[in-house]
């Protein structure tokens, strides 16, 4: 599942479409917030670029309304933007724009009740995150209450490209899979096809964010980005087809 910051460029929807066409299972659309406390420099930069362009939640949702139905979209943002509208209005707006899931990195299990109820009531999946520091009983509870999939944060750190996949990624994914039948997607620090393959071994899928956004910020065209994702898709498919 690739990640794209909503509104990062004037033609960001073309990038979105290219990612869909390149074989994304789903796409994470970032709704930019002024203070992205869990993001590393690349997604911070993408966020700043989007906000500088005047991107708003409403504008981004407008841009994607009517987007192709065959690739599910999952919104991700910080909780302040959810609170601003109120969780119910916010989730309803997501659903109206055709978004099926929501990731809120600064909303841990303990604070998620209100948002979970609001999301559920309009049929949006509130995805919860688990981290390598999450202890066992809590991990089970996160897995139980997460909807859509469980987001496995691969390492203790922020989003962003890394040279290698953290060992903690496989451990965490296995621990989550031991607690639930829900799909587990691994994110944070996965940049290359090889890293994706490695991370996917113990999980149901991977999330690639900063690596794509770095390319977009450096001026990559929708075709460029699509080609990158296609490469990763192929690597993952080959791995899966092996015995």
């Amino acid at each position, binding site marked *: 599942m690739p990640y794209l910051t909503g509104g990062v460029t004037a033609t960001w929807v073309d990038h979105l479409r290219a990612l869909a066409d390149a074989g994304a299972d789903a796409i994470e659309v970032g709704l930019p917030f002024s203070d992205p406390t869990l993001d590393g420099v690349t997604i911070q930069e993408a966020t700043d670029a989007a906000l500088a362009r005047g991107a708003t939640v409403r504008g981004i949702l407008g841009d994607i309304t009517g987007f192709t139905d065959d690739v599910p979209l999952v919104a991700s943002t910080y909780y302040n933007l959810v*609170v601003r509208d109120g969780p119910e209005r916010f989730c309803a707006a997501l659903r109206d724009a055709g978004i099926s899931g929501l990731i809120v990195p*600064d909303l841990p299990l303990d604070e998620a009740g209100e948002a979970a109820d609001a999301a559920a009531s309009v049929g949006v999946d509130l995805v919860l995150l688990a*981290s390598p*520091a999450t202890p066992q009983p809590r991990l089970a509870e996160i897995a139980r209450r997460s909807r859509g999939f469980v987001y496995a944060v691969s390492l*203790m750190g922020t989003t962003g490209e890394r040279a290698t996949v953290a060992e903690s990624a496989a451990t965490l994914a296995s621990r989550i899979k031991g607690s639930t039948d829900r799909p587990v997607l691994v994110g944070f620090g996965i940049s290359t096809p090889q890293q994706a393959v490695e991370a996917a071994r113990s999980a149901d899928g991977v999330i690639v964010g900063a690596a794509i956004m770095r390319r977009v910020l450096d001026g990559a065209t929708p075709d460029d980005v699509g080609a990158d994702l296609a490469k990763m898709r192929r690597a993952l498919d080959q791995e899966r087809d092996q015995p």
Partner: protein
Amino acid sequence: GRFGNYGGGYVPESLVAACRQVEEAFREAWPDPGFQQSLARLLAVQVGRPTPLTPVRRLSAELGINLLLKREDLTHTGSHKINNVLGQALLARRMGKTHLIAETGAGQHGVATATAAALLGLAATVFMGQRDIERQALNVYRMRMLGAEVVPVETGSRTLKDATSQAMRHWVGATEHSYYCVGSVIGPHPYPWMVRTFQRVIGDEARGQCAAELSTAVPDYVVACVGGGSNAAGTFAGFVDTSARLVGVEAEGGAGAALGRVGVLHGARSLFLQDGDGQIVEAHSIAAGLDYPGVGPEHAHLRDLGRARYVTVTDDEATSALVRLARTEGIVAALESAHAVAWVIRAAGAGELPPGATVMLTLSGRGDKDVSTLKELA
């Protein structure tokens, strides 16, 4: 962890365990006589507590009231920040942590953290916005002289808000050995509660000193400036169960309590300055310590309850109050604290403070750090 509808722990899952660990350590340490003794001794021999309560005679006479100042400006490092930092640093050492992480705006919390780290043999990493580094070069050098690493933050507005975000990001990857020493009554649970608990030494001392100094024992008004609001929270805690009216004074350009709307930032639900889209707005104040777009959750709650009032003061009013206090009492207050003085002057002039009213005001810090700012204005 909750103050009415405010507070909570809105942190990434990666920090949940670390925050719990801090909470458990604090809950265990606070009632421990050994911890209390260590802290009390540091506050006495290092910080110079108790700080005096100073009746200001000449300004009081001019204003027709009875104004008393709680002198946090006389503490070691020059502001109330050290009260909280020493408590947290002792806690960090008790938890076996070897590093302190902190954010700083004007540099006072950074200097206090660097000081506590040196004293207890810990390392310190202080995040500071690049713009603040340029504005407060001398405090940066003070921190480095104390052995702290000062890390410039180049993102966003390059001020306190962004330094706080960056400190949190850093902590996510360093929870094993590092303790995040938050500088105000902000952040996720247990910080707003714990920081206020460490700062309530201000209010408790002042309460006792007022009882000795005033025939009424309790002042009519208790006033303090509010950025994140730690000196105010600590002060109010000593008087919340009395008849004293509590007044928090914010900078007009950083008035989270007076003008903010409900939101979530840096781990807590509270009041923040934000635009219609929910983006956090940059604060602007001549006082770097009030240059924060939100307020601690307890203040949001006290405002909702009506137990405390939050008022605003302009840069010009604060500057004039600073000069007036200097000329009448020989005290050069921090620009932050001068906001509280400015409100008292305005309120006394407007008859809002009745003649003869007794006012206890916490002077949160000294103004030496602001002299170059004021010099540029002159």
